[in-house]
């Protein structure tokens, strides 16, 4: 078991030793969005609505989810005007 640093070793001001990119803040999500590219109109609304910034638009213009940071809230599926997002159980 690795021992965590004591108060005298930790940086002051509660400075984080990890970048926020390295925290898998979505690892507890139960559902993740699944995109149907047949129906997707590349409107990118899901990208803008995602409260976590976990949906990025790829070079082709399609949305892609960052599963490490997606919490599975389903806002994207609710907002998608083309109804192309389905929330599917991931665990």
């Amino acid at each position, binding site marked *: 078991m690795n021992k965590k640093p004591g108060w005298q070793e*930790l940086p*002051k*001001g*509660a*400075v*984080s*030793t990890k*970048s926020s990119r*390295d925290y898998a803040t979505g690892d507890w999500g139960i559902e993740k969005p699944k995109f149907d590219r047949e129906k997707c109109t590349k409107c990118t609304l899901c990208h803008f609505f995602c409260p976590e910034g976990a949906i990025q638009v790829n070079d082709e213009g399609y949305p892609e989810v960052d599963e490490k940071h997606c919490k599975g809230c389903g806002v994207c599926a609710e907002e998608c005007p083309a109804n192309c997002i389905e929330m599917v159980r991931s665990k």
Partner: protein
Amino acid sequence: MKKQILLGLNGDEASAFATKQVNPDVVAAYPITPQTIIVERFSEYVADGEVDTEFVAVESEHSALSTCVGASAAGARAFTATAANGLALMWEITYIASGLRLPIVMAVANRALSGPLNIHNDHSDSMGARDSGWIQIYCENGQEVYDSCIEAWMIAEHPMVQLPIMVCLDGFTLSHTMENVNVLQDDVVKEFVGERKFITVEGHAGETEFRLNPDVPLTMGPVDLQDYYFEHKLQQVEAMEQVLKVIPEIEAKYGEISGRSYDMVEKYRMDDAEVALIGLGSTMGTIRFVVDQLREDGVKAGMLKLRLYRPFPEEALIEALGDTRVLGVLDKAVSFGAPGGPLYQDVRSLFYDREDKPLVANYIYGLGGRDASPMLLRGIYDTLLEIHRSGVVSRNVNYVGVRE
């Protein structure tokens, strides 16, 4: 000692004048009586081009301190000022400023908390913030306000400290009362405060100065749960203890340029005192007068002025009290439901383990600006003398100057 000029300034103006000479990077404040003059004067300095400060006219005190947190985290020297309900609105952010170890300087023109609404002086505002991790200095007069508003930066920014600091001045009694204030030359103050120094921390992008810098990104105070929060709080405890070591060094340096320096606990005619009063702020000036009168009457009375309240200077207080065995503790604030006022609780607890403990009685006075006249204070000394004669404290907590 450097050349000084004598000015007529009220306490608020003394604070603004000192801050002008320090020339901080950011001042964010919202006006509230009796602090308003500080912000008004300072905004005039900004408008007249006398400072390089970015003045942020915010919409509330919550925003004022939040702006200071952001500015200070980015490496700026940040100053704000408030009073009473303004400080109450800052509450949430006071803990964030200290938890993130940001050396912000804040002047607090002490005023009673509403309700009922009252704009006059007592210490209920800053006493409520005594556990927020801020250093607290209470000033006796306008000169001390000026001096403290310069020294405060050196205390807060000391590498061993890195904590925010409140310079408390009694509302109206100090804030609006014009006094003779000796001020240093601008360049002398500039040299004394120098540039803000930064500690080095190990962030996720490696070792860097403790400030937000896009070239070496740093995350300050993110979610900090069961496994780290406690350790970070212990760091704050340790930093507070360091303040007690750092202040005498800074006072000595300030004494060299100004000829003035202050003890954390200041003694007045304590040498052979049989009874003494301890308290905070402007009342201590009145007590000097009362003690002089009592001494003329042959009464062995003394006074202890507690200039530094947080951290609580335990050793200095024990030493300053010396052999005096009857101590009255003045509190200008009520800690509702508690066994006495806040200062009384601290003082009494301090002596609990000591065999040579004094007899201690608490006097809660001056709430909502109720006058602390020499006659009232003399009456308190009379009860202390009675305790000295009888060896018994008949009533621990006394509310003085209030109608029955």
